[in-house]
């Protein structure tokens, strides 16, 4: 069969790629499920699922994991039939396919650990063999005329034509962008791959068709690619993204206003179609890209307002009477705030809708683990920014998986402990304030085993839940000897922490009780784009820190900060001192020293108090400069990715002002919960 000599080296890359493909397969199954629930078919997702499984099958055959070949082959056959039947899968089939994916995961992890391969239940193979496509949904009459030349039309599948037509009915433009590759363009970084990425960022690419064209100076290869897409972007923006002239962008059909009598697919699966009707009446779909554009214009407006404010201050300093100007500016500021909140409201999505997807996850977990689990969702009417929802959802999924996998006991054990056999996992969401969302994931399982976590991390047993959470979030820690099949080896608590704390600037909390259950609390901002921030000066440089991360600003009395012995920093004062705050001693750190700017010349008089996971720390700064509404942009270049710096903002002077993440900075200094314990 395969030659171990040459191909054995590929084991690690095989495992890496298969893991990605399995994640993709799960995601496509969820997408298919969501479409089915709306009464639509999703040919694209079925094809992508097929492709992922097919690649897993081929790779597994190469490295000799035969049971995976057997399972994926059967799944593939079922999907091929489905594809012919227009992408329609009966809902129960999703369950069977999810079981198939789990079984593949188990085989792959056994291969990874050199363990004994699990036995594929014959019932699963039979169930996969028995899968049959459901009835195709009635074809929607395609009343949208698309202007396609025969060579292009021929290359499109029926579902792709449908997608184009549907997009046009929903109010987007169907556009064709032509790109001819050449060596010069490739050298300048313009290839079909990059063009596709760039253009794909401005809309939804339905298909890219290669075409033979006469070889000319502009198309030396004698080929061109026609990118067919649905978009809200302008011709100019598309041409720029593709690196072509605007004449290479042509409409396929004009966008239409969404017709109220657009052929609605009757939906028998939704619990209450009437409720949906009420909800949707008078609503319209908006392309997220358009909202981003509006948001960007707003950001520019906020920046120029800040500049006006500075000019005004300069005039005042020169003794000019600016009262009328100041009033006008105040008015202007209020209007900008109103505009901002209107735009933000448009970006809001109901959290309940996003959480609904968890039902499918739990259904799959129930099957895979054999545990009895009920999922209670309670998100009420809470809404949050789409960007936040998209980021936080994977963290919630992980916590739910962990709960079912590690926390919930088997039914027999639960009975023995006097608990109801059916366990409960509850995901709730409330708006904590106008700016913050609180998500909780709780279970009534066995609670986190502190001793075990400590043993695995080779650390002392943590006191208190905050210290326990800190341990759990150490990179790569898993409390199980082998990664479980459902949680996989992919995302650990460290990733959950990164999403919540670093990416979203939020807070992660844990409460757990042996035998009774565990609750994770995620506090994240409702929106990402514009934040309120304090500006302050430190080491003659201006910095920003988000308001939401600062507990309070306190005055520092230099005479009352005590520094203990610090044998490790010989000759210099230690980095951490102690000051009093409302009757308790808290650590205080000179921020300029913490940032590596060297010793400070005059004592600090103000400090920013930051609290996380119940720990409090004060960062001493030179002076506060006031409060601003800023647009924080992440610094993505590798040269600028530094722990403690969350991004930068333009305060109106055209220069970047760094936005600090004091919590991350604390970790960089080794002042995490474990490090600060001695100060309490």
């Amino acid at each position: 069969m395969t030659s171990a000599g040459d191909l054995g080296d590929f084991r690690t890359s095989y495992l890496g790629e298969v893991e990605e493909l399995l994640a993709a397969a799960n995601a496509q199954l969820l997408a298919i499920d969501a479409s089915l629930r709306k009464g639509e078919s999703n040919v694209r997702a079925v094809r992508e699922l097929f492709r992922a499984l097919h690649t897993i099958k081929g790779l597994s055959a190469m490295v000799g994991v035969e049971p995976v070949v057997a399972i994926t082959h059967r799944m593939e056959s079922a999907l091929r039939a489905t594809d012919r039947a227009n992408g329609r899968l009966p809902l129960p089939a999703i369950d069977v396919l999810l079981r198939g994916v789990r079984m593949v995961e188990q085989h792959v992890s056994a291969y990874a650990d050199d363990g004994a391969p699990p036995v594929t239940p014959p019932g699963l193979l039979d169930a996969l063999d028995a899968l049959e496509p459901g009835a195709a949904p009635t074809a929607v009459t395609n009343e949208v005329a698309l202007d396609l030349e025969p060579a292009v039309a021929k290359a499109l599948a029926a579902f792709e034509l449908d997608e184009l037509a549907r997009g046009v009915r929903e109010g987007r433009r169907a556009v064709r962008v032509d790109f001819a590759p050449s060596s010069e363009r490739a050298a300048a970084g313009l290839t079909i791959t990059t063009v596709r990425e760039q253009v794909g960022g401005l809309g939804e690419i339905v298909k890219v068709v290669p075409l033979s064209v006469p070889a000319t100076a502009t198309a030396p290869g004698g080929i061109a690619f026609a990118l067919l897409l649905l978009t809200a972007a302008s011709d100019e923006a598309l041409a720029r993204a593709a690196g072509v002239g605007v004449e290479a962008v042509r409409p396929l059909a004009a966008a239409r206003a969404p017709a109220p009598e657009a052929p609605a697919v009757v939906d028998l699966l939704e619990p209450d179609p009437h409720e949906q009707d009420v909800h949707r009446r008078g609503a319209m779909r908006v392309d997220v890209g358009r909202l981003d554009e509006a948001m960007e214009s707003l950001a520019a407006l906020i920046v120029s307002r800040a500049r006006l404010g500075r000019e005004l201050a300069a005039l005042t300093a020169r003794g000019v009477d600016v009262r009328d100007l100041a009033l006008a500016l105040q008015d202007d500021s209020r209007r900008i705030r109103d505009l901002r909140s209107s735009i933000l409201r448009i970006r809001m999505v109901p959290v309940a809708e996003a959480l609904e997807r968890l039902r499918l996850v739990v259904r799959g977990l129930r099957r895979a683990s054999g545990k009895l689990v009920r999922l209670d969702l309670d998100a009420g009417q809470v809404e949050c920014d789409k960007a936040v929802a998209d980021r936080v959802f994977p963290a919630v999924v992980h916590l739910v998986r962990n709960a079912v996998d590690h926390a919930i006991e088997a039914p027999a054990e639960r009975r023995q402990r006097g608990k109801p056999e059916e366990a409960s996992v509850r995901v709730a969401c409330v708006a904590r304030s106008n700016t913050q969302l609180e998500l909780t994931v709780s279970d009534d399982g066995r609670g986190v085993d502190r001793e075990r976590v400590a043993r695995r991390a080779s650390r002392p047993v943590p006191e208190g839940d905050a210290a326990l959470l800190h341990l759990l979030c150490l990179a790569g820690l898993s409390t199980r000897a082998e990664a479980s099949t459902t949680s996989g080896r992919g995302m650990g608590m460290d990733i959950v922490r990164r999403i919540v704390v670093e990416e979203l600037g939020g807070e992660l909390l844990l409460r757990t009780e042996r035998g009774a259950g565990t609750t994770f609390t995620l506090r994240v901002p409702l929106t990402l784009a514009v934040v309120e921030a304090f500006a302050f000066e430190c080491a003659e440089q201006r910095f920003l820190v988000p308001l939401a991360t600062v507990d309070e600003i306190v005055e520092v009395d230099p005479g009352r900060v005590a520094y203990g012995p610090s044998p490790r920093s010989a000759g210099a004062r230690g980095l951490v001192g102690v000051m009093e705050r409302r009757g308790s001693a808290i650590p205080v750190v000179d921020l300029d020293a913490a940032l590596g700017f060297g010793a400070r010349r005059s004592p600090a008089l103000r400090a920013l108090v930051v609290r996380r996971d119940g720990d409090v720390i004060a960062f001493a700064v030179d002076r506060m400069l006031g409060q601003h509404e800023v647009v924080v942009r992440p610094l993505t270049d590798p040269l600028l990715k530094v722990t403690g710096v969350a991004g930068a903002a333009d305060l109106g002077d055209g220069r970047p002002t760094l936005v600090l993440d004091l919590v991350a900075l604390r970790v960089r200094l080794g002042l995490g919960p474990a490090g600060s314990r001695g100060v309490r």
Partner: protein
Amino acid sequence: MAEILVVDDSKVMREMLVACLRRVPGAAFTQAASGLEAIERLSLKHFDLVLLDLNMPDIGGIEVVEFVRAQDKLRALPVVIVTTRGDDGSRARALQAGATRFVTKPFTPEAILAEVTGLLGASGAPR
């Protein structure tokens, strides 16, 4: 020099193929991760042989073969389809579209090496 284009959306698969073919005398490898990228590379540079996966995002191997065969300068290019056991239907369609040969996964390094050196010798290509 024998210029070989290896087309597969799976990076592992591309690397396996290149590892198997290292011993082809004077071979130089170019990799493409999608059907579109393959067509682009073929239009801009001369290749002596293509190894082609069938299942890829954007456009699949069969569409690539069809397109290649419609180009005058690529009509004689040897195209080896790398397929997986059990893909009989797609194999027939690829043959119709103009594929030259098939290699079935799992394959041994020796088998694919023999196939490729045979084709390169037959076309007298190495320039």
